[in-house]
């Protein structure tokens, strides 16, 4: 233990603790900007400087470990002056058009400026000199360098969590900025659109491309029929953006709010999550049969999931040789979109031309996914608009809805019914668990051999989690699987996914089935979820997801009656002709830079 004093108060902390954390323990708040609990220490914004008695300079409290008998002042005149100067400097290179900014009210620099009553703008405004252009080329992410304070949280996110490095530091001195490969626009680089950078950007430099006005126009147009689908992770995150605590489940309130907003039909992506399980499970079993029985050398195993559009773009760039290993199933969002303008429109007697399909996603990559040229199998753009959880929260506020006071409501039908297996799609390991619940039962006729259907080994927050399940006493038609140990691996965060794929490529690991979600924690930690994010918040959301699963009357995808109905009335059989037409897709080889 190390003894020190902070503002005269004694504290004893573990060796290696930073001054910042020690100060927090004593309930002294030290402001930070570049610091983020998910990322390594940077120490570059310098707003967290504190005075260490007898040291020549101030020290960055986030980057300095405590030492014995250290005497720290967090609010001395020296510190206050320096801190104010630093905030003023940041403001001088920041386009402070706060009232017009998308992040107004959510900006960490803004609150800091407010806290320190900085605002007389002593220094010269550098914004006109630099004349940065806003990059709106990506359908998912808008990058505005004039709002950037060079804290490099985005760079560290892209490198450390995602291993993508689409955003990096370029140039030096006054020209230093956050850039991309050869300063190309965002839509031309390896950016996976995951939006994790947005979740960690303290200002409005990185925000989602928002489609709020477009959606309002569709809703308020009397000639359209607007259907909305909500992804599993939205119902456990939305509350945070509306003043509730992390981990609060707001499914019923969310449905009620969507109805109040004026959507003609409020439906559930969970329905197509169940459908994904049937299609993807069938595909996996098909691949296993071709490999084990037909000895088909062209069959590709391991098979990977395809629900996460960040993962899809990542593998297209980074491991194009593995594209045939990716399940051909569209993501639940896109399955939903394709069915909304076919199956749903038919059943409801609507002209598909007039159906507008909107999805609410915890994700920014879904915006890109919806724009893919191959996502038009209904004959129209399958999903017209994708809004993030944050955008929905904003619409709810705009509509003057007192969210907390809403009475719970139920999803509309058809395509509104779902199972516990679908809701866990929102958590890392969830697709794997849902698939195993169904596949195991199809093959053996018995429930998965885990207490309460909870497949604990695939859950949790470890970056890579392996599990295997022994198949025994199969039904006669699946006898070839007797004694097969199905090897699975789950990865979340693309840096972890890269490691898994490298191991597969180099023959260091052998799997049958790989689940990857691009974002830390899975969709619940997605790039469209409420800000801030950190491990505690993601854990709370995870608990909520599994609680939602436990609360569902049906917890296996194949038992969803609407799923049975859609095969009977419309699709025919899993992986059948119609399914392939509407619910499956293909991938594109992309450059590695």
């Amino acid at each position: 233990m190390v003894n020190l004093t902070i503002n005269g108060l004694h504290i004893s902390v573990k060796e290696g603790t930073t001054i910042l954390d020690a100060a927090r323990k004593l309930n002294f708040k030290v402001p930070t900007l570049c610091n983020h609990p998910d990322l390594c220490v940077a120490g570059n914004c310098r707003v967290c400087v504190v005075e260490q008695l007898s040291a020549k300079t101030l020290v960055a409290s986030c980057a300095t470990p405590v030492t014995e008998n250290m005497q720290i002042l967090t609010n001395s005149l020296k510190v206050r002056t320096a801190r104010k100067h630093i905030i003023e400097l940041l403001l001088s290179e920041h386009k402070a058009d706060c009232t017009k900014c998308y992040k107004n009210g959510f900006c960490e620099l803004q609150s800091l400026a407010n806290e320190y009553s900085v605002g007389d703008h002593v220094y010269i405004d550098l914004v006109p000199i630099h004349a940065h252009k806003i990059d709106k080329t990506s359908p998912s992410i808008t990058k505005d360098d004039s709002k950037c304070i060079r804290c490099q949280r985005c760079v560290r996110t892209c490198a450390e969590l995602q291993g993508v490095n689409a955003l990096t530091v370029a140039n030096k001195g006054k020209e230093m900025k956050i850039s991309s490969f050869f300063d190309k626009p965002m839509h031309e680089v390896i950016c996976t659109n995951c939006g994790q950078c947005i979740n960690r950007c303290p200002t409005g430099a990185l925000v989602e491309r928002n489609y709020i006005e477009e959606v309002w126009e569709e809703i308020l147009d009397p000639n359209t029929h607007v259907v909305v689908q909500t992804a599993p992770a939205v119902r456990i995150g939305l509350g945070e953006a509306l003043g509730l605590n992390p981990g609060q489940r707001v499914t019923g309130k969310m449905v009620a709010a969507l109805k109040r907003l004026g959507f003609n039909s409020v439906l559930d992506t969970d329905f197509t999550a169940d459908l994904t399980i049937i299609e993807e499970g069938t595909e996996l079993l098909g691949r296993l049969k071709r490999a084990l029985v037909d000895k088909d050398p062209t069959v590709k195993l391991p098979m990977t999931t395809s629900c996460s559009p960040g993962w899809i773009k990542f593998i297209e760039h980074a491991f194009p040789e593995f594209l045939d290993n990716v399940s051909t199933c569209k993501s639940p969002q896109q399955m939903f979109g394709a069915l909304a303008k076919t199956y749903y429109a038919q059943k409801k007697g609507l002209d598909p031309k007039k159906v507008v399909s909107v999805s609410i996603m915890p994700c920014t990559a879904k915006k890109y996914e919806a724009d893919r040229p191959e996502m038009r199998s209904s004959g129209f753009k399958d999903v017209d608009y994708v809004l993030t959880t944050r955008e929905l929260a904003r619409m709810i506020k705009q509509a003057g809805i007192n969210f907390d006071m809403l009475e719970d409501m139920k999803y509309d039908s058809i395509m509104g019914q779902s199972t516990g297996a679908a809701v866990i799609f929102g958590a890392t390991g969830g697709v794997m668990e849902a698939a195993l619940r169904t596949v195991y039962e199809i093959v053996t006729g018995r429930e998965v051999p885990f207490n309460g259907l909870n497949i604990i080994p695939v859950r949790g927050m470890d970056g890579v989690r392996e599990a295997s399940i022994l198949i025994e006493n199969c039904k006669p038609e699946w006898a070839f699987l007797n004694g097969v140990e199905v090897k699975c691996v789950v990865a979340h965060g693309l840096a972890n996914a890269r490691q898994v794929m490298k191991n597969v490529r180099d023959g260091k690991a052998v799997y049958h089935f790989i689940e990857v979600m691009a974002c830390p924690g899975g969709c619940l930690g997605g790039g469209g979820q409420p800000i801030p994010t950190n491990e505690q918040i993601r854990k709370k959301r995870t608990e909520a997801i599994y609680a939602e699963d436990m609360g569902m009357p049906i917890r296996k995808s194949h038992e969803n009656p609407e799923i049975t109905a859609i095969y009977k009335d419309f699709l025919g059989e899993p992986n059948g002709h119609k399914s392939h037409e509407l619910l499956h897709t293909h991938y594109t080889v992309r450059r590695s830079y």
Partner: protein
Amino acid sequence: MKSSALKRVDLIFESVNVREILDKTLKRKPEEIIQDVLDSGLRGRGGAGFPTGMKWKYTAAEKNAVKYIVCNADEGEPGTFKDRQILDEVPRKVFGGMAIASKAIGAKIGYVYLRGEYKFLVPKLQEEMEIFHAMMKEMKHDFRLELRLGSGAYICGEESALFESIEGKRGEPRNKPPYPTTSGLFGMPTSINNVETLVYTVMICKYGADYFHKLGTTDSRGSKVFSVSGDTPKAGIYELELGMTVERFVEEFGDGDTKAVQVGGASGFCVPRKKFRDTIIGFEGVPTGGSMKLFNSSRSMYNVLHNYLDFFTEESCGQCTPCRVGCQQLLLGVEAVKRGERNSRYLDELVKLAGTMKISSKCGLGQSVGNAFKSIVENFKEEIIY
């Protein structure tokens, strides 16, 4: 009182038999070598002046199997050109110093990080390295050198940015602690020394600590190679005993009309004529990595300051706020005052800002911008304003 001529020293460029010195020194115990360097009072000649013996002692104390000695030859301080001359004339002494350091700290690999603009030295240094490696083999001292070139960034002369650069990363300073002696190049304990410092260690080993200790003052032992430039009839490289006043220096090198001397380059201090007599060149007064620039009355100190600030706005790595934005604000600020767009009181704001940069920047670059700024603005305020 007319002062006597400055005491010339000839240690750095003195022709010596490096093999003989190494033969003797490499047989000694590391602690003995370190003790000699400590006793000599030698402080780093790159400008910061950290006691060399302490640096070696700390590195030697680390238990890691892999350690490095790095020679900082990224001589980038404006007005400094002595390392270039040393490497050109006595490279064997530089490598000899690295061999001595390797013995002292327990390193098997040494890196020479050469300023990119000194590329013309590469063939010569490589040739000399081969001779050196053969010598090491004969002496059965397990030590090899690697040569790395910078790419023109001033910041890569900062020790931790230099490590990043060798590691193939963007040259940006790291947070300290940890210091290089515990976690330096590739995360290993590293001693990083300036070219000139390493040569002095060879001479200390040759002549003994006492010989060196007798030169200079209490705070600034020994001699130092100065790069003299600007308004002087005698521009060039001179090895002089430390501890002289600026006045004596100007008597020797001035053109009779010297109004200011910039000691230590862009990151150093500007000494105006009225302070020549009371200012000692050394760690007790104004320290320098060697750069001595003389300005006569034909020079505009506004232009001098502008030039330095322009340099820093380009050469800041840009990662930390005080340095990246502060440099731009100082530059634009003096321009605005000069044009009359801001009144002269704004200079006071800028001096305060320079003070903040000094205490809150991440590395020595940002911390030293304020030196030149404050000393020029405070001593030549009229020239800045009018």
